[in-house]
């Protein structure tokens, strides 16, 4: 039985091509590797090599033929011992369709409702509610809460280690890692060179190798150098490996605006990282948030981007004492109960939103303030439940407006609470400019309490 030689696909997109010339004629002996023909695609002329041995029995597509479909039979090869009589009555099998032909892709989540599909959300295991805590409280700064979280988890698990610029001998550029080198030694508290993509990639490799790295960025501004490894290596490997392996690790450091440091050192990355499936993105506000969420992040088997805030490090809060206080990632917290308007915020802006709620109360408007705590996965349930009650939503963030968390919030309300809204969702954002240095301009750039309060009044038509 002769061997069919078919038209090869030479590129991911090729479905047909021109058979330019034949280098062999009928009756010629062909060995594996011989160039038998040339074909032209829109990109190039390529030579076609034989993969089998034999005698070219019949050319079915003559030279010069255009629009030859990929996988159609172009010639027949006679095997050893066969002669031309084998060609008699030979019927070629139908060309098999190429893979790029339209395929029937079933919708992964068929919906019976005639509405626009809700943006697909990866199913996430049900998230436990925040545990009731009734134990002893201590007052400490956010900086101390973060340090305690790291130290406690390092005591529990030998595979947890901290690496980053100035984390060890210098005790942390912002003193978050104060004392850790003394307690854990230089094998587990590691000063890196200033080499973000390098040490981030190294951290991902260490996680692949079974360790649980905490990679500190001196500030998240420098994580842009390392974003390839956060997104391409850490976030996607679980998926790309079919679930075989992932990156149990934390990327942490101060994010967002600092004070008078100019455009390259004042930027919010919450929206950037929240865009990426495979990452969890956490942004604590209070000391308890910082401690409970960082402990959860260190224990979480997924890569967690943990966005701290420089201006919060020195602020003090009441924090649960003891080493067993862990908060669930993916749960928001209602920080202030209200009835007229919902304000969503994360990180430092939660405090600003609470100030705004005070201003509004003086005007007789009752604002509910939700501390998002996690920006991916978002606690949509808590937000929607609040909006069902207040029918209004204002999102406050330091970051830029376009494609920011506020834009996400507006889209989510369209999808999940459209009929509950009595006013459009309003975004209160950082101004759409690189951060200026001058004190007066910088102050104009970041949203303050009165700006949030004004937005709330506008959605209350006041």
């Amino acid at each position: 039985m002769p061997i069919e030689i078919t038209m090869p696909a030479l590129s991911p997109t090729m479905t047909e091509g021109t058979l330019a010339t034949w280098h062999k004629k009928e009756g010629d002996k062909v060995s594996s590797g011989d160039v038998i023909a040339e074909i032209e695609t829109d990109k190039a002329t390529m030579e076609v090599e034989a993969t089998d041995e034999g005698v070219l029995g019949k050319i079915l597509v003559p030279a010069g033929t255009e629009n030859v479909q990929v996988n159609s039979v172009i010639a027949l090869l006679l095997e050893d011992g066969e002669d031309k009589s084998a060609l008699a009555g030979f019927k070629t099998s139908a060309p098999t369709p190429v893979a790029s032909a339209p395929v029937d892709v079933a919708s992964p989540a068929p919906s019976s409702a005639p509405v626009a599909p809700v943006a697909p959300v990866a199913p996430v295991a049900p998230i436990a509610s925040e545990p009731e805590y009734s134990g002893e409280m201590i007052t400490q700064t956010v900086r101390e809460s973060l340090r305690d979280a790291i130290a406690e988890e390092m005591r529990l698990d030998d595979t947890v280690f901290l690496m980053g610029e100035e984390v060890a001998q210098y005790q942390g550029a912002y003193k978050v890692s104060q004392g850790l080198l003394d307690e854990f030694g230089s094998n587990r508290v590691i000063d890196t060179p200033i080499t973000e993509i390098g040490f981030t990639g190294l951290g991902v490799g260490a996680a692949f190798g079974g360790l649980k790295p905490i990679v500190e960025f001196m500030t998240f501004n420098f994580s842009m150098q390392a974003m390839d490894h956060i997104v391409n290596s850490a976030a996607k490997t679980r998926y790309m490996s079919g679930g075989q392996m992932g990156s149990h690790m934390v990327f942490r450091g101060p994010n967002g605006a600092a004070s008078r440091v100019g455009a390259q050192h004042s930027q919010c990355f919450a929206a950037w990282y929240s865009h990426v499936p495979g990452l969890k993105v956490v942004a604590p506000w209070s000391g308890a948030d910082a401690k409970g969420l960082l402990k959860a992040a260190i224990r979480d088997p997924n890569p967690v981007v943990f966005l701290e805030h420089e201006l919060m490090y020195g602020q003090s809060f009441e924090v649960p004492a003891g080493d067993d206080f862990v908060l669930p990632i993916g749960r928001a917290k209602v920080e202030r109960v209200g009835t007229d308007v919902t304000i969503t915020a994360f990180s430092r802006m939660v405090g600003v939103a609470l100030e705004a709620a005070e201003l509004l109360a003086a005007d007789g408007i009752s604002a509910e303030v939700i501390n998002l705590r996690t920006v991916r996965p978002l606690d949509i349930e808590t937000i929607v439940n609040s909006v069902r009650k207040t029918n209004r939503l204002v999102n406050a963030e330091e970051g830029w407006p376009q494609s920011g968390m506020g834009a996400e919030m507006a889209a989510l309300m369209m999808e999940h609470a459209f009929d509950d809204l009595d006013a459009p969702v309003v975004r209160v954002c950082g101004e759409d400019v690189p951060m200026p240095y001058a004190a007066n301009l910088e102050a104009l750039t970041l949203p303050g309490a009165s700006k949030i309060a004004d937005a709330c009044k506008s959605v209350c038509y006041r």
Partner: protein
Amino acid sequence: MAKKASTAKPKAKAKTKAKVKTKKPVKHLEADAEELVEFYREMLLIRRFEEKAGQLYGMGLIGGFCHLYIGQEAVVVGAHSTSNPQDSVITSYRDHGHMLVCGMEPKGVMAELTGREDGYSKGKGGSMHMFSREKNFYGGHGIVGGQVPIGTGLAFAHKYKNDGGICYTYFGDGSVNQGQVYESFNMAQLWLLPVLYIIENNKYGMGTSIDRASSTTDLYHRGRSHGIPGEQVDGMDVVAVREATARAAEHARAGKGPFILEMMTYRYRGHSMSDPAKYRSKEEVSKVRQEQDPIDNLRELIIESKAASEDTLKEIDKSIKAIITDAAEFAKESPEPNVAELYTDILVEANG
């Protein structure tokens, strides 16, 4: 009816001429007969696998990018022969050969190429993204140079856990100009991490020859400013590769830090399937194939040194042909992944 469809495989047509140094490989007899035959078997397995992959690509059964390793077989076969079970391996997107020498099943690799549920990544990774925790193969990375700091981190983990392992980190001549490679070199030597940096210099980063991309082309010197020793090796000679890698591995295992091996090799096919390879001449390619082919030369060596008979090698050829045919059939028959797989393996549940 036809016995089987044989899609002709494309071959790059080249018009420009480039000069390459080619020389007859030095013959070695240091490896024992059994090892030589095993090298032959592994190299042939890779070559036949890649030829079949090229054929399935031509039939439209493999999509997207597919980077074939044909011509470079001696590098990974020789280098990997020096590894221990606890060692780790990581490479770029030209990765099928590395997976096969790590002991990953040809069926599973081929089924990943065809995007089917029995592939190593359930069809979700493709040619460039396959992993095996069990075989300590850590990918399969699509960003040029991205695997170098990750491999350095795997070495960091070996040292941290003190498990005696080293990481074999492979990358091409195209990636040696990436900044992260030097960031990795610096940390690896600073912390004396047990990592082998194995540069597979096949002379072209996609379509750009090394002398058009690199200010200095002796890549084994690229660790000099970090104090990392390096050696250039005839990467078409599997025994030379094995010997050089064994020395480098001893260095890394002894706690002396990283070692750079520059394997001088050559890929016969284009960068990927759609590359017409006009940047090099047909004569250049055929000269290497005729004079330096790692499999032909080893076969000759085996016969000359009477390490095995012609008949034994023919038996090996036959058994490999059967393995590859099975793998291809398996990869065609395996179903496409269930649509429910779209949303799995993104996050895992936290159990803390």
